[in-house]
């Protein structure tokens, strides 16, 4: 009887440990999507984001910092776990079209494993507020929250 109890305890401990390990393997990270427009106003942008689909899933897409790009950009839900997502948005508001470095979106990811995945982005196209095609660059950086509940966020390149 005592032997059976010991075996049961060992099995329970093993199960708990395995569950803990599985839980510890999933981390959530947010990524800022920033574009650099130089002296041009940003009227529209379209960027592609590539990520390893075996370990990364996008669990949320939110808008950017300037009011004109505050709404979540357009994307295809199929892109949330396919390894590639296209984000795009535009504004026709001439008065508040941003320029320079603009955080246009933020994506939230769940990542399996401890390694930081290779997530990259490239510009598909962009236009200024007058509809003229412009050249911009895109940059992805991990968003770090300083404290839980603190609205101020720190971004780490």
């Amino acid at each position, binding site marked *: 009887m005592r032997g059976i109890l010991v075996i049961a305890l060992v099995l329970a401990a093993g199960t708990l440990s395995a569950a803990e390990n599985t839980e510890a393997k999933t981390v959530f990270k947010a990524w800022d999507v920033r574009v650099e427009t130089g002296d041009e106003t940003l009227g529209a942008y*379209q960027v592609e984001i590539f990520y390893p689909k075996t370990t990364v899933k996008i669990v949320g897409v939110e808008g950017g910092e300037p009011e004109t790009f505050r709404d979540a950009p357009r994307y295809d839900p199929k892109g949330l776990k396919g390894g590639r*997502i296209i984000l*795009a948005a535009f504004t026709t508001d001439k008065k508040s079209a941003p320029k320079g470095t603009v955080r246009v979106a933020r994506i939230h990811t769940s990542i399996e494993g401890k390694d930081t995945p290779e997530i990259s982005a490239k510009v598909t196209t962009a236009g200024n507020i007058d509809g003229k095609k412009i050249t911009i660059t895109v940059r992805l950086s991990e968003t770090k929250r300083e404290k839980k509940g603190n609205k101020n966020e720190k971004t780490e390149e």
Partner: protein
Amino acid sequence: MNNSADNQPDSAETERIARILKERAARLADRIPPEADRAVLAFIDDRARSIARAPRRARTVRWVAWAAAAALAAAVGVWTISGTRRSPAVPPVAEDIDHSGTVDILDAFLMARRLELDAEKPASWDLNRDGRVDGADVDLVAQKAVAVTKEGT
């Protein structure tokens, strides 16, 4: 443009030179042995004939060049036409508003700007076929722009 034909004397000039040389040779005939005289005259005739043939050769070369160019043009034409036939014609995509060859957010942006300006909108922009061009059509274009199933965007 200079070519070998331009550098050759024309046949009239050649004949004139030959005539002068023959006249001079006739004047000196009594002082020159007849064999030498015949040899010189034969040489002059031969040389005159070869010079007179030169422009004809140049014309022939020119014709060959033209024929080669025409053949090359025909070959390029055939190649282009056959190439077009091989690749299936790409149907125009209604959502490609700016005719850039791809549907992207700039197409939706262009539509939205035109809508805002209340400018004239082509009927072909009524993508959802509801009888009017409006924000719903812009949404369709934007949706297509970000679709990940398609390639090349």
